[in-house]
């Protein structure tokens, strides 16, 4: 073995230090082990910090029918005058499901291609589900659209993110009319405004309700319950083990 073939230990060590620093800069998902923030925890686990790892795009090949969907979508988007790199931020294949994170300005184009292209044929949209990720600065509010192709018996999922400061996403009612009530529900619960929706009003909460209850900064509420002399606090104030 020659000396040239050996790894450069100094470079390796430098990379390791940098990787460690990058890791330390990541956001903390939770601290401690047993959720005991109030009592003296002498186990040593109280100082534990679990960090939130970044979610990278899945590498090709995605497996299953996902590669074909991505290829056909790329072709369709080119016909529509854009590219998949521009429209789709990242693709995540997780637990056998494909999620395409679409830039919000391209959502309608992507949905149209997915619906109309005969090789894709996602005829059915199964609604909208909002998710609030308070730690994702610049993209706190997500809207998730599960799509189903009856022709090819396939499922994929579209996801768009909008910042809290500008919670706007284009509506999909023009492509999938079924999104009408689902988008109203997502507006009602998350405050996500669907631009172009024919009547974006509250659907589950009363018309004059203040706030958007499914957001993480909205409290659950509740009152303490007395049962045989013992008081049970509302769920929000009970000890949590997150």
């Amino acid at each position, binding site marked *: 073995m020659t000396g040239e073939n050996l790894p450069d230990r100094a470079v390796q060590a430098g990379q390791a230090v940098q990787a460690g620093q990058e890791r330390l800069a990541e956001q903390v998902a939770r601290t401690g082990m047993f959720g005991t923030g109030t009592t003296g925890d002498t186990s040593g686990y109280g100082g534990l910090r679990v960090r939130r790892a970044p979610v990278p795009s899945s590498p090709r090949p995605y497996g299953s029918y996902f590669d074909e969907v991505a290829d056909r979508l790329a072709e369709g988007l080119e016909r529509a005058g854009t590219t998949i790199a521009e429209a789709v931020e990242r693709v995540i294949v*997780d637990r056998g499901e494909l999620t395409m994170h679409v830039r919000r300005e391209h959502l309608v184009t992507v949905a149209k291609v997915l619906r109309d292209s005969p090789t894709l044929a996602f005829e059915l949209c*199964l609604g909208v*589900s909002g*998710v609030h990720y308070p730690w994702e600065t610049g993209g706190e509010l997500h809207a998730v659209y599960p799509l189903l192709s*009856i022709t090819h018996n396939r499922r994929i999922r579209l996801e768009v993110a909008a910042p809290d400061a500008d919670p706007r996403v284009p509506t999909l009612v023009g492509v999938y009319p*079924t999104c009408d009530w689902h988008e109203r529900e997502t507006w009602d619960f998350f405050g996500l405004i669907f631009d172009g929706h024919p009547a974006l009003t509250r659907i589950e909460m009363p018309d004059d309700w203040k706030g958007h*209850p*499914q957001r993480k900064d909205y409290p*659950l509420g509740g009152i303490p319950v007395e049962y045989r002399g013992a008081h049970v606090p509302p769920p929000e104030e009970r000890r949590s083990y997150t």
Partner: protein
Amino acid sequence: MSAETEGRVYNVGGQDWDEVVAAADEAGDRPGEERLVVNMGPQHPSTHGVLRLILTLDGETVTELRPVIGYLHTGIEKNMEFRTWTQGVTFCTRMDYLSPLFNETAYCLAVERLLGIEAEIPRRATVLRVLMMELNRISSHMMAIGTFGMELGATTVFLYGLREREKVLDLFELISGLRMNHAYIRPGGVSQDLPPGALERLREFLGVMPAQIGELRALLDANPVYLRRTRNVAYLDLAGCMSLGITGPVLRSTGLPWDLRKSQPYCGYETYEFSVPTQDTCDAFGRYLVRMDEMEESLKIIEQCVDRLAAKRPPHDPVMIDDAKIGWPAQLAVGADGLGNSPAHIAKIMGQSMEALIHHFKLVTEGFRVPAGQTYAAVESPRGELGCHAVSDGGTRPHRVHFRDPSFTNLQSVSAMTEGGMIADVIVAVASIDPVMGGVDR
């Protein structure tokens, strides 16, 4: 409200109808048109719970229909974010209260996929899930057809439907301990095995049920009044179903045999023999026929489940996953004060196994952690595709659980089915969709 945007506004204070009519005539608003806006519901016996329909009528013709929902919103999805993953079952079972076992299954399949334990669910638990779901399909369709009959004035149908549903509820009580809101299906399996005597009761049920379904068929299948009220009423074709996202019996009444149990099987449905009934009439009568046929198919599946459950059991045949860090300690037994942990289980954790005690304590107080990520699991409920979108942030509680309830989506189509039709057909249209407001509003 300004006159420019809303037209002229008349304040009606009672006893002044003549003045209002005279004023309207004078103003010449929409001459020749007699428009009447009527609120149907939210408390109305034929709206399947608290559904409000705002009808704009021209004579007896519906020119516009706007459904208003939200009267039964209970914040189940929000509440689930403050409970452990296992406790979530007790919440979601209460959503669509006529098909609780489907809610539980959809949720548990999503949690199990997030945990990556789909392949480790015990065989017997899966068979029990299928058995309970198919029993539930029968009880739900019985309720749908029974209330359908009552809303058209056929009270006998209602009594027959509820009588048969009661038989299913008795079986539920025997197997899960509860008639409704069972929380029987849990992440990792089911809460308990079949009690002694359950198989005999199931066989007895299988013996009487075909004749009971036949009784309902004899009342309705060729009933001229029923046919006149339901044929070519509440028409919605395949294109309408696709664009409005309609699934379930309404979709199958357009001739498309789309059933998730066949097309994307879960819980081992690919190993059962059954067919997907369809009709091609796109109307309320077609949906009724689809539901009747589906009950008969469900009986076939239940029979196969009973055969599998009655077969000779291997020595180790649990109904809950073997992983002690996930499987809720579910060795339950009926005690003096109701159902609770079995004395054998308590003796084991208190006297014999330190690890079992730790697992019991950790699972009951803290719950288990679910790896971060999201998933969407769907099952074919009696009303269509019931999907559960579950998001975990790696903690012991769900970050977000959303249910794509078929009633919610299907109810959107009621305007398309009724506008331009008669007001009496509104009742038929709503009943043929079979919405359950608990599921719509969640």
